[in-house]
């Protein structure tokens, strides 16, 4: 544990070095030249409406991670609820530090390599002047922090797979390594200038590949490597507080408007359209899951309904800026049907313990949504996009398929390697005694609920 604290302090030290590096004399000189032009440029380029919407979107997406914490926290047994909340919350801190130090640079600095490189290390040259290739009308800094929220929620999604049994220190080390070696490169390939999947023409509006497939595959690996919870017999463990889960789902749905509509990077028609299709997909998916349960399990449940809505939201994410409202209805319906089959029928047969269905809902939804872009994308919706198979362009479907396969394989393999490496130094799983007592008391020395008073 001491070793771990030292590592954290070193990281902090590095950050300070990064900050001073950004202000070294050579860079400052360049800054002066830019500064003269920037006053004029900033005024002419930055659109106040766009920037205002991005500020709001950033806050929306930030709220998704605590929302996810409650979504997951309600599903676990009450001896582990603080463990889940803590894991989600600490990711806000850790990944923000990683992102401003080097994560943003690795992900978004222009370049044709594996990563974007270190040009924007320590947020060097990331300021008020818009970076045209990403977002021409908002300050570069706004784009940077908007993307930080995506980098935060992605590793937080994985928590659902190893809930109730992962050691906290191992979780932190895994999260930083995973962000660096899985999230940052894939983010660069798909969204970064010079990224090879971006140049191949892959369409991912708000993160079906980068966020959902990516986290989903890491979740699947986690469930396989960390192993089943003690006493798990292929049946769901009863959630300790479903109202928390419903609250979390509601916050996620709300935040998703920032996630998807914010990805238009401006206050414009495309943002409105993305918000509409996002909402429609969530609504249809919720009804669909409830109906499936009504047909096959006698009664519709609130747990099922919100799971359907989250599946719909995850699935519409890559498609939200490219498809029509009608397509969103089809995608929402398909999301619930496919995720229902994966969670309620396939998972129990395969016998792995993806405790809160991070793969079954987010991974499967991301795969489905990314492929759906290849079918339903239309230039009539977004001229900057492409036509899909149903609009006479089968090539787009092929491109989407390649991206899905590449990211599934890459995320699965590298996540596996990272788990194994972490396991060499710190056992990823808590001891059996700690698992029985619960993560709240053993990992954090706290109790969520008192029994008496």
């Amino acid at each position, binding site marked *: 544990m001491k070793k771990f604290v030292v590592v954290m302090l070193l990281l902090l030290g590095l950050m300070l070095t990064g900050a001073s590096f950004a202000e070294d004399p050579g860079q400052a000189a360049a800054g002066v030249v830019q500064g003269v032009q920037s006053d004029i440029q900033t005024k002419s380029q930055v659109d106040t409406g766009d920037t205002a919407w991005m500020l709001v979107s950033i806050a929306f997406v930030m709220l998704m991670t605590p929302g996810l914490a409650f979504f997951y926290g309600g599903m676990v047994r009450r001896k582990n609820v603080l463990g889940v909340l803590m894991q989600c919350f600490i990711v806000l801190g850790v990944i923000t530090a990683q992102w401003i130090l080097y994560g943003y640079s690795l992900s978004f600095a222009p370049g044709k390599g594996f990563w974007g490189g270190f040009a924007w290390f320590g947020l060097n040259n990331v300021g008020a002047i818009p970076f045209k290739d990403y977002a021409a009308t908002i300050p570069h800094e706004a784009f940077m922090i908007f993307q930080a929220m995506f980098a935060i929620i992605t590793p937080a999604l994985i928590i659902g797979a190893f809930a109730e049994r992962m050691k906290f220190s191992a979780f932190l080390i895994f999260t930083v390594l995973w962000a660096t070696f899985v999230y940052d490169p894939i983010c660069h390939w798909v969204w970064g200038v010079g990224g090879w999947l971006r140049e191949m023409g892959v369409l991912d509006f708000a993160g079906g590949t980068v966020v959902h497939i990516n986290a989903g595959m890491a979740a699947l690996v986690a469930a396989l490597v960390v192993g089943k919870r003690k006493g798990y017999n292929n049946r769901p463990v009863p959630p300790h507080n479903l109202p928390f889960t419903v609250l979390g789902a509601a916050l996620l749905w709300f935040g998703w408007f920032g996630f998807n509509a914010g990805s238009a990077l401006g206050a414009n028609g495309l943002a409105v359209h993305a918000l509409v299709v996002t909402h429609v997909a969530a609504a249809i998916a919720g009804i669909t899951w409830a109906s499936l349960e009504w047909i096959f399990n006698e009664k519709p449940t609130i747990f099922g309904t919100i799971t359907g809505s989250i599946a719909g939201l995850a699935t519409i994410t890559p498609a939200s800026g490219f498809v029509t409202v009608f397509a969103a209805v089809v995608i929402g319906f398909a999301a619930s049907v496919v995720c229902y089959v994966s969670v309620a029928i396939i998972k129990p047969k395969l016998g792995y313990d993806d405790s809160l269905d991070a793969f079954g809902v987010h991974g499967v939804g991301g795969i489905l949504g990314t492929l759906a872009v290849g079918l339903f994308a239309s230039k009539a919706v977004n001229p900057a996009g492409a036509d899909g198979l149903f609009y006479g362009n089968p090539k787009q479907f092929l491109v989407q398929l390649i991206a899905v396969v590449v990211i599934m394989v890459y995320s699965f393999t590298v996540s596996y390697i990272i788990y194994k490496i972490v396991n060499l130094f710190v056992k990823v799983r808590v001891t059996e005694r700690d698992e029985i*007592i619960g993560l709240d*008391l*053993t990992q954090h*020395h*706290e*109790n969520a609920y008192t*029994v008496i008073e």
Partner: protein
Amino acid sequence: MKLIIAIIKPDRLEAVKQELYKADINLMTVNEVLGHGRQMGVTEVYRGAKEMGNLLRKIRLEIAVNETFMEKTISAIVKGAQTGEVGDGKIFVLDLAECVRIRTEERGGGAIG
């Protein structure tokens, strides 16, 4: 008639229930309680303030049986709850003076099962 009270670890409840069902004992009352015997609790810290040796969560089972069922019940609980570690719990057996089935007002041994 006997009243059997067992204090067990929460995660053993499922196993104990299964053993009781196997022995044909289907009636029980379950409570969540706090306690510790020789096993100490787990440290808790709230905003830097440490609390040592707090009480641990336990499950308390109450089962009323006729004499002929007593040994079966005890061995079923032991089988389900025993891990061999400190903290497995205790079983207390008390004499039971009376038992009334509220629905029929039936009394005594016949009212138990």
